[in-house]
């Protein structure tokens, strides 16, 4: 039988052992270790979870391990909704994956805080097809901290079968869009038009919403002060309010539900990004690519918005040279060609054409890609790190206008005051 003394002794030894084990650090890699020495790179992305597309992307980047056989890649996966929060928390704790992709609104504060590794050497050593203008999103305070993983452009598309059944011509302006959506609802009983509209999806909705204000030529700042209540922004909010109140939108549906409805042939028209169309077609039994009608641009007077996903290297990573080498490979002709097949209708870091058979089978894809020439970032000029905080105030007032009524000018005037107070 164990006496008290033995028990306490054993417990103390166990606790001390555990403490020592906990305090003992894993052997650290030399931060100057050359890329040729290889190792494992942990690659953080929510996209690995995307059915079909995630697997294709993962297979595409495995080509890097042929170029550098001493390197291996490992996934670090978090669902999209919590990806940025988790990544920020990990980086705040000086941890996190070696390389990761992140939306530009989340990328900018990280680069601005100086916790990403500079990619100047990647730009300087780059050969072959030149980097296109989308890579300016990776340039922060004059230093290249990221390159374009993909740029997803918002565009307008529809289900040809539903529009034909409702005897509706594809609309070319907001009034036409409202009329078409209402006609689809009355003729078929289906939802006419779907787009994000709820604060529960704030992280995506605030970027999605730029389609409307940018579409009327609006901006959230002039570079030195907020311009929330500008006439152009008010026009964009009013246009959105009209379609929201038209009765032809599935109010309360989140993006996932609307995409499912479109996929199942229960929603007539949508404004969404290119990867959505690709995802819908990949999993739809009701639709083929030929059923997708598409516009050259969103039926609004001015160019629209994009969502840019940037590839970056963790400044706290233990194998930074290898990570930078990987980014260089992604930008190379070989890496871009491998990614093009997996990414489908996205704009990449260099202008890589779609494969002829893919382009022929998916005529809508090129229209989405071409929009990158004129699309605009959701980052607010002059206040880039505060973009999300500013947009939280703006979207709260937009939501108030949508559900409580009133006028858009008052809503944006209130947001202007709140944003001014927020920025001190």
């Amino acid at each position, binding site marked *: 039988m164990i006496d008290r003394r033995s028990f306490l002794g054993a417990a103390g030894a166990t606790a001390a052992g555990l403490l020592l084990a906990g305090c003992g650090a894993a052997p650290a890699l030399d931060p100057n270790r050359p890329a040729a020495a290889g190792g494992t790179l942990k690659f953080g992305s929510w996209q690995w979870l995307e059915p079909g597309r995630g697997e294709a992307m993962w297979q595409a980047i495995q080509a890097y391990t042929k170029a550098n056989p001493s390197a291996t890649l490992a996934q670090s996966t978090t669902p999209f909704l919590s990806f940025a929060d988790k990544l920020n928390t990990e980086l705040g704790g000086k941890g996190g994956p070696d390389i990761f992709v992140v939306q530009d609104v989340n990328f900018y504060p990280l680069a601005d805080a100086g916790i990403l590794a500079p990619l100047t050497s990647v730009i300087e050593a780059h050969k072959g097809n030149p980097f296109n203008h989308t890579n300016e999103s990776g340039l922060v305070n004059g230093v290249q901290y990221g390159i374009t993983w993909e740029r997803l452009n918002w565009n307008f598309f529809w289900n040809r079968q539903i529009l034909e059944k409702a005897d509706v011509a594809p609309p070319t302006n907001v009034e036409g869009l409202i009329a078409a959506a209402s006609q689809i609802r009355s003729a078929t009983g289906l939802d006419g038009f779907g787009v994000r509209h709820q*604060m529960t999806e704030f992280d995506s909705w605030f970027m999605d919403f730029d389609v409307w204000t940018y579409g009327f030529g609006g901006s959230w700042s002039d570079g030195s002060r907020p311009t929330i209540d500008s006439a152009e922004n008010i026009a964009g909010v009013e246009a959105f309010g009209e379609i929201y109140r038209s009765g032809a939108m*599935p109010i309360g549906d989140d993006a996932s539900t609307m995409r499912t409805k479109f996929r199942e042939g229960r929603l007539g028209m949508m404004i969404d990004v290119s990867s959505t169309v690709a995802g819908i077609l990949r999993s739809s039994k009701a639709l083929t690519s030929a059923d997708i009608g598409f516009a050259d641009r969103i039926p609004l007077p001015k160019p629209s918005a994009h969502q840019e996903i940037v590839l970056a290297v963790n400044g706290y990573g233990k194998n930074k040279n290898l990570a930078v080498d990987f980014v260089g490979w992604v930008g190379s002709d070989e890496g871009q060609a491998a990614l093009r097949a997996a990414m489908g209708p996205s704009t990449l870091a260099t202008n890589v054409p779609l494969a002829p058979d893919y382009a022929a089978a998916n005529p809508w894809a090129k229209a989405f890609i071409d929009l990158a020439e004129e699309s605009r970032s959701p980052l607010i000029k002059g206040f880039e790190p505060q973009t999300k905080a500013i947009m939280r105030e703006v979207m709260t007032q937009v939501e108030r206008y949508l559900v409580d009524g009133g006028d858009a000018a008052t809503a944006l005037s209130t947001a202007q005051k709140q944003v001014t107070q927020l920025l001190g």
Partner: protein
Amino acid sequence: MSLRTSISPPTGVQDQIQDAPSRHHMWQRISPYIYVGPAVIYLIVFMIIPVVQGIQLSFTKTPLVKPDGGTGVGLENYSRLLSSPQFYNSLGATILYTAATVLFAVLVGAGAALLLNQSFKGRTIVRAVITFPWAVPTVATALIFSWIFNRSDGVLNEVVGVLGVGQQGWLVDPKFGMAAVVLTSVWKVMPLVMLVVLASLQSIPSELYEATRMDGAGALETFKAVTWPHIAPTVRVVTLLMTIWSIRRFEIIYLLTGGGPVDSTNTLVVNVYRQAFSNQELGRAAAIGALGLVLSLLVTVVYFMIERRNAVKEA
């Protein structure tokens, strides 16, 4: 030489025998600390240090991505908060949510316990079914209720449609947002109240009920004279716990409404999350958390004051 001396053990053994009581005494003195030690260490490491650090953080401007790179700003976070209408809106939403959730959860839970304390056929099955919501994971609860409340396809709108009421935006209209969140929360937490009160009801001696019956007391008199005095302390404790849990509840609210519509459910905890992760302002989030802590402490102090007053009355 006395007999006692003659049978004394050798010196070493004698020392051991003399040492034994002192060791026993020593063990008695230190053992409580050893038993309590792990709990104290746990509280210090996981509660007290984080609370102190959180309060320290609330006096700084600290970005989420550089938590060790904060700069001291004194009381600026607090002065900004206390001069911001959003903060008072958030405080109001917290108080409204907490009051409504606790009130309905305790009323419905205690009522259900009183009913399920009666004898009837199938009582065990009914008890098990009513306990079910407590066992459902919170995320699943929020997901199911978001479907129920969905404006275009939700079951609730089907039901009210039959009653002649038009489609309502339960989760998108600020008139209904708080009600939807409270309803979901009450459904989820009510079974716990029921179980606790039911356990208390079952501890009441049946002789007391027989005595009141013999005295000719009706149901209401019996409840006032026997049932309530027995379950009142339990109801008070469960009310306190429900209040503290409701002040800090996050998942149901965030998953159903994200703090909307129009900030109508933007409670302090949701606000902390927004400030910390969306706005990446750890200092401001910590200041909201500190004020939330004060609110929880106030509730606890009020509870103990009521308890002390009752104890004095009973004495």
